[in-house]
């Protein structure tokens, strides 16, 4: 955030482009001319989407004279940048474009401001060699192996608190991590354990198979209304399960929606799908808010 504090000296003085030259804008998540970003609620903490937004803005405003679209606040700044010669249009042509909303969607209302928290990540990796589960179970710590019950060693580590199922084919399933990086780290730790036990373990095809997130919309929801209008997506059987099961098609995500307003999202392969699904469902849920 300190970049924003250093912005006021930039404005109106030297060209922002000149100040930018040491720093490639592609790699800084906060553009210096992004002081326009601060007044707005930044909902996406994912730096990747900000990068895409900036690239999109640069493509949109190829002409430096795009002043007609720019809002009033930085009026003086527009003038200074357009008069400066030798500016590479690569960096920024109109620094005022950040005033356009960051999130491209939801024309009617702004985004919800609620970010689903990831609760569980399931990933698989291939260790690339056949394993002898009995030796692993006997020599490793925190490993349980009951071949009559299940044909895999169940190993647990404490650091990213996770559980792994290690099969004799060399494939492994890692569950319980709270982020993608933690899942990868935990899988590497398990692979290291197996390696230390003497097997030629590799780390092939690490893939995240499922991500589960949850959040709270903070108001009660009328599930009966929701199941009436969204019949083809929803299934609400209070005898079977107290929550409504909403199978969204566009990001293929299953949401469990409860009367209290808590929502669980699952079935995602990437984090963005969870966020996208929640942004899709939030206006629908707002429409079924309980009024009493």
């Amino acid at each position: 955030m300190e970049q924003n504090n250093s912005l006021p000296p930039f404005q109106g003085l030297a060209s922002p482009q000149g100040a930018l030259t040491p720093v490639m804008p592609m790699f800084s998540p906060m553009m210096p001319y992004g002081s326009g970003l601060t007044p707005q609620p930044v909902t996406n903490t994912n730096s990747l989407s900000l990068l895409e937004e900036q690239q999109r803005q640069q493509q949109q405003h190829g002409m430096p004279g795009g002043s007609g679209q720019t809002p009033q606040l930085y009026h003086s700044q527009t003038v200074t940048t357009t008069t400066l010669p030798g500016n590479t249009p690569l960096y920024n042509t109109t620094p005022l474009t950040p005033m356009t909303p960051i999130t491209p969607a939801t024309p009617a209302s702004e985004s919800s401001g609620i970010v689903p928290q990831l609760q569980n990540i399931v990933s698989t990796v291939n260790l690339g060699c056949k394993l002898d589960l009995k030796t692993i179970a006997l020599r490793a710590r925190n490993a349980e192996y009951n071949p009559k019950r299940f044909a895999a060693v169940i190993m647990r580590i404490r650091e990213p608190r996770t559980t792994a199922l290690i099969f004799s084919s060399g494939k492994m399933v890692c569950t319980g991590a709270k982020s993608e990086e933690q899942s990868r780290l935990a899988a590497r730790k398990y692979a290291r354990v197996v390696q230390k036990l003497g097997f030629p373990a590799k780390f092939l095809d690490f893939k995240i198979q499922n991500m589960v997130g949850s959040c709270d919309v903070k108001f009660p929801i009328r599930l009966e209304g929701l199941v009436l209008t969204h019949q083809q997506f929803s299934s609400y059987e209070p005898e079977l399960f107290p929550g409504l099961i909403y199978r969204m098609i566009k990001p293929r995500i299953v949401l469990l929606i409860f009367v209290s307003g808590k929502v669980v999202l699952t079935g995602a392969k990437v984090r963005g799908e969870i966020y996208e699904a929640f942004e899709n469902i939030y206006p629908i849920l707002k429409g079924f808010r309980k009024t009493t």
Partner: protein
Amino acid sequence: MASTSRGDVLALPKVQCPNHPDAMLVEDYRAGDMICPECGLVVGDRVIDVGSEWRTFTNEKATKDPSRVGDAQNPLLNGGDLTTMISKGTGAASFDEFGNSKYQNRRTMSSSDRAMLNAFKEITTMADRINLPRNIIDRTNNLFKQVYEQKSLKGRANDAIASACLYIACRQEGVPRTFKEICAVSRISKKEIGRCFKLILKALETSVDLITTGDFMSRFCSNLGLPKQVQMAATYIARKAVELDLVPGRSPISVAAAAIYMASQASAEKKTQKEIGDIAGVADVTIRQSYRLIYPRAADLFPPDFKFDTPVDKLPLL
């Protein structure tokens, strides 16, 4: 010789009245005639009599019904095959070689539909146990046939599909049965019936209405032997409780059970939570939980014309 009273579009000679070619001929089965209704002309005669071959009186010992026609066909469900079955012989001359084996057993009558017929039998048995009327059984059979022909749930046990079809049919007819009630007459677990239920709805692309508390009132109350007044009061209480959103997220069965408990405790016919739980298929702690939620507003929930045997403030606090 086929009777073509309806003028069907097969390549059969159409009988029609020479004077009134458009008139629909009336069949007089007793005389074996086909009569034109406009002019009374007997157009076709010697129509095959479809009545029984002989008359059987109830006085005579009816051990042997010599009818050679057999049961009515069910073409809608069977696929209408006309097979001949050889039943076991009764006389001595039924080829008892070595005394044991009789003449060849009845062949596989309709191998493809054998499973379906079995399922229909199972459905009828299940429905009989809870006294379901013929229309629900027919609807269940139709649903099963659709699911069976679709083959999307082929791997599932037929009994599970049949139980789920029974559940859906009851729902569609407006008289839903709880999953537990269907479980009671089926060998399949509630979990499996629930799974098949969701799969069938997806396969047939239908949906069912949401259950309400009122759907179960008459059945539960009459099983408990409660008078009509109490039943009406319980229905009113449950509906009011859901309208006032006193029981968010609770299953309608639990709310209905709690309403019955409150209504019965306020009347002369008091029932315990255990008894109601037994009939409704809910645990008595569940009734207790829902009852605790509706108890504070008890005074608002009763219908205005209810005659209290126990006044509202003396209702048990459990």
